[in-house]
């Protein structure tokens, strides 16, 4: 399957660009301590908004921190938050969707009404309200974005479970006397994963945007944390001097989200037999 996808990737130029962009960000996040000599919260100088130089590749930000180190450590924070939020959304949505799809009847009805209810709020607004309840911090952003993203996964998983559970091999498993939990976990859910991977890849992009947006609104807790939305906000607070800082942080967010969206579209095309035939 992986070899099949790599073969498809070789022909799909946009997905290649997506993979390169994601690898760049992952590379920066993993190798942050190697790439820079400065810590993300170590003030370097009082020359705020110093221009880029050989010692500070992107100059200094409004608090006198090395902007390059804040950006590379920011990649780490942003990716971690987005990954955790997407995993949370996937797990929550997965449990809700598989319960609804497999159990059916009143459980299906109840779970799907909860999903409909959650989707009756604009998602970003719901995340803002969740942060108000949970409190302002980066960890709570994970919870807020994860919970808000769950309904989309729930709908997708339910649809997949409904499709798979009607297949003959599931009927055979039932005839063999396997328990419902065993059928669901070992035979139904593993066959529902592929479309979920597409949704999760696209979900990473929207999670990064939501987290950065919430941090930009001042709901991210400590403004000195190296997170791209917070870095952007710090530059935005002094627009005459911080434009470069805003530009760099925004470009990082755009590049990463674009990477995940391109890869997600590529995965969707790979799974769609009509596109593959073309």
């Amino acid at each position, binding site marked *: 399957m992986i070899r099949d996808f790599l073969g498809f990737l070789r022909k799909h130029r946009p997905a290649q660009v997506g993979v390169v962009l994601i690898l760049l960000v992952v590379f920066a996040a993993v190798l942050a301590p190697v790439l820079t000599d400065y810590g993300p919260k170590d003030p370097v100088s009082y020359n705020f908004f110093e221009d880029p130089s050989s010692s500070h590749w992107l100059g200094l930000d409004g608090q006198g921190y090395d902007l390059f180190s804040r950006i590379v450590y920011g990649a780490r924070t942003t990716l971690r938050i987005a990954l955790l939020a997407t995993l949370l959304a996937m797990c929550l949505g997965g449990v809700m969707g598989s319960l609804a799809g497999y159990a059916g009847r009143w459980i299906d009805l109840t779970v799907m009404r909860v999903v409909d209810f959650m989707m009756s709020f604009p998602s970003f607004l719901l995340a803002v309200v969740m942060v108000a309840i949970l409190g302002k911090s980066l960890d709570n952003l994970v919870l807020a974005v994860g919970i808000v993203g769950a309904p989309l996964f729930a709908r997708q998983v339910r649809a997949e479970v409904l499709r798979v559970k009607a297949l003959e091999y599931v009927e055979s498993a039932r005839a063999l006397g396997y328990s419902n939990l065993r059928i669901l976990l070992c035979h139904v859910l593993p066959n529902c994963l592929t479309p979920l991977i597409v949704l999760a890849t696209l979900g990473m992009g929207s999670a990064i945007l939501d987290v950065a*947006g919430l941090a*930009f609104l001042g709901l991210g807790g400590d403004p000195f944390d190296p997170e791209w939305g917070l870095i952007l906000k710090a530059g935005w607070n002094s627009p005459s001097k911080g434009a470069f800082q805003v530009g760099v942080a925004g470009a990082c967010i755009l590049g990463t989200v674009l990477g995940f969206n391109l890869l997600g579209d590529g995965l969707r095309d790979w799974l769609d037999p009509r596109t593959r035939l073309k």
Partner: protein
Amino acid sequence: MLIAISIASFLLLQALPGDPTAALLGQQATEENMASMRHELGLDRPLPVQYIDFVGDALQGDFGRSYFTNQDVSTELKQRIPATVELALAAMILATIMGVSLGILASIKPRSIWDFICLFIALTGVSMPIFWLGFLLQQLFAGDMGLVPFGGRFNEAGWQGFQPETGFYIYEAIFTYHSPALTFELLHHLALPAFVLATVPMALIARMTRASMLEVLDQDYIRTARAKGLASTPVVVRHAMRNALIPVITSIGTQFGYLLGGAVLTETIFNWPGMGRYVVDAVIRLDGKPLQASVLIIATFFVLINLLTDISYSIIDPRLRHRGRK
């Protein structure tokens, strides 16, 4: 669904951290003062009774007073809701015109420069942090070029005689004040925030129009129309667009709902005094009443728009109407 939304909005006030009486009375408040204030606000009554009162008041347009500013929430909302509706409507009109045009151009000339532009906008539009785009455009068009103002709805110092009764300023400028100069001033302020807010829906509409048109243009009846010698424009306009735009038109309703959420960021950047800015201020101050009222109103709007979108399916698509009659 509306009942569930009203329950959630009511419970939101209970879920928010902090004691509203402490916020109202300040740090000098004693236990007795707080208990008396709690009784005065009705917060010591059972939750079901408080909920019934909340719904009764909300139906009469009474959302109480802000714990932080002591302003009447309903009066604030009367100004804020039209500001957001005006912004969202302008953004939707822009997004529809640009998105549909771009999508059609890309589909009738596949692999052309238009197709490339459409795909580029569709991809970057959905990946763009709109607060970043807003900042860049603000710096370029308002700062460097001075073409548009930085923010706000209009220059209050220059238009002191403008005392609108409703919050729909453009409507009032045209139909009550009959002033083209004032209308231009309002549109001048609206242009940039509306464009920024339109970015994401425009990208989605362009992508959807392109995909839908490509599918329709590949159908047998289009080939037949072409084979019969019909010119390209009537084929596209009369035969392809009528069918291809059905899913696009219905998706516009859904996009409009999402604009209400997107307005939270756009209004913050452009200092636009709408619902989004009001929600953010309420969250930062943990001001329960404005937050409760805003959530109730935005979610109700959202549900009603989705309902209208569902109804519009059967009106726009004759096949569904026909199936319904059967």
